[in-house]
């Protein structure tokens, strides 16, 4: 018997797409401290879509990345709102979504308001795979996002279509550096050169570089030597559901959950773990 129900029907069911949150850590001024949380999508358990790369590749092929993006934003805000304190949320969005969803910013702000999340605490990470958007509409959407108080990051600079052209267009507050550049940087002068270049680029325009996929102390030291002090990766914490994150040292310490001096210079907050050192991914913290 042929299937009548498609995978897309399953994906758009409420609760089918789950969000996990991964801490971004600030190492400046005697850190580490929680800087921000990135929301990462997971498709239904036990399906091929549980892998986010497959989920979004499928969505792009079905031409529904905007629909899936909006579901992810709503789910991310819901997860984030369940956490105590005043951290910040970073959530991915395709540039094509900004250009194609009518009233995109208003919808995000409405959703944030519904979950009692101040839009100033939200950063949108622009993901680009294909330059299919109208530049004028895209620019208009970016201006609206800034006007609403949200921040903008450029995801995976240098990967795919996330290029200098998009960097100039977006004028991002944050630049995310992909794990493929970060992993192994301590032993590879070519990777270090790219990292130094991005760090310099960020400094030149008053932006902040964030290194993704940090897994070793050797790479951590290299990043710090290059002046990159906002990091994300299994060396500090894996992505996890909000309920699990709420029990982690990021939120469990008495002084938590205020965040590090960061985007808007708020006062510093909690240490990464109870021992005052980074936590390896394999370590359970509770």
């Amino acid at each position, binding site marked *: *018997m*042929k*299937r009548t129900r*498609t*995978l897309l029907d399953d994906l758009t069911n409420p609760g089918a797409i789950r969000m996990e949150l991964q801490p971004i850590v600030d190492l400046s001024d005697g850190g580490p401290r929680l800087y921000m949380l990135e929301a990462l999508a997971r498709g239904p358990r036990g399906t*091929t*879509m549980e*892998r986010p*790369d*497959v*989920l979004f*590749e*499928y969505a*792009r*092929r*079905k031409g529904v990345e905007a629909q899936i993006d909006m579901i992810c934003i709503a789910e991310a805000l819901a997860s984030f709102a369940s956490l105590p304190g005043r951290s910040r949320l970073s959530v991915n969005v395709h540039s094509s979504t900004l250009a194609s969803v009518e009233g995109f910013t208003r919808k995000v702000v409405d959703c944030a308001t519904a979950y009692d999340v101040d839009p100033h605490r939200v950063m949108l990470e622009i993901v680009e795979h294909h330059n299919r958007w109208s530049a004028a509409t895209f620019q208009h959407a970016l201006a609206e996002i800034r006007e609403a108080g949200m921040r903008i990051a450029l995801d995976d600079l240098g990967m795919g279509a996330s290029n200098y052209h998009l960097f100039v267009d977006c004028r991002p507050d944050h630049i995310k550096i992909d794990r493929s550049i970060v992993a192994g940087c301590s032993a590879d002068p070519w990777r270090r050169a790219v990292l130094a270049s991005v760090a310099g680029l960020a400094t030149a325009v008053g932006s902040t570089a964030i290194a993704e996929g940090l897994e070793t102390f050797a790479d951590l030291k290299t990043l710090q030597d290059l002046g990159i002090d906002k990091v994300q990766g299994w060396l500090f914490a894996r992505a996890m559901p909000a309920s699990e994150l709420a029990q982690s040292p990021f939120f469990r310490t008495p002084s938590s959950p205020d965040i590090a001096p960061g985007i808007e210079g708020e006062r510093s907050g909690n240490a990464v773990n109870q021992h005052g050192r980074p936590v390896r991914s394999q370590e359970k913290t509770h």
Partner: protein
Amino acid sequence: MKRLLLIDDEETILFALDRYFSRNGFTVDCARELEEAEALAVCTSYDLVIADLSLTENGSTEGLEILRYIRRTCPAARFILLTAHATALVEHEAMRRGVDAFLHKPRPLAEIARIAATLMEGPRP
């Protein structure tokens, strides 16, 4: 461990193939739609692909589209195309697109596995 992509819209066939090949040393991903199969192929490098020719309605030929896509993105993968509705034209087109084996359904799992093993042992295209 070898990676296998199974593509069929019929859950029972997918289930049986998945169990059989998983128990025989493969890491298996299952896809039910053209776009799902292509998304998996973008994100994963497969050693073997076993696809049904028709995924939406009798007579459709999504398997040929997947074959063309796999040949572009993962040229070293072995590709077995299964169908219950073979025509000479379709078989010719599958050969032209580089299929390694074109099998008529139903076919015993052990025989599919034997053909797959023979293909995997041979030189890569």
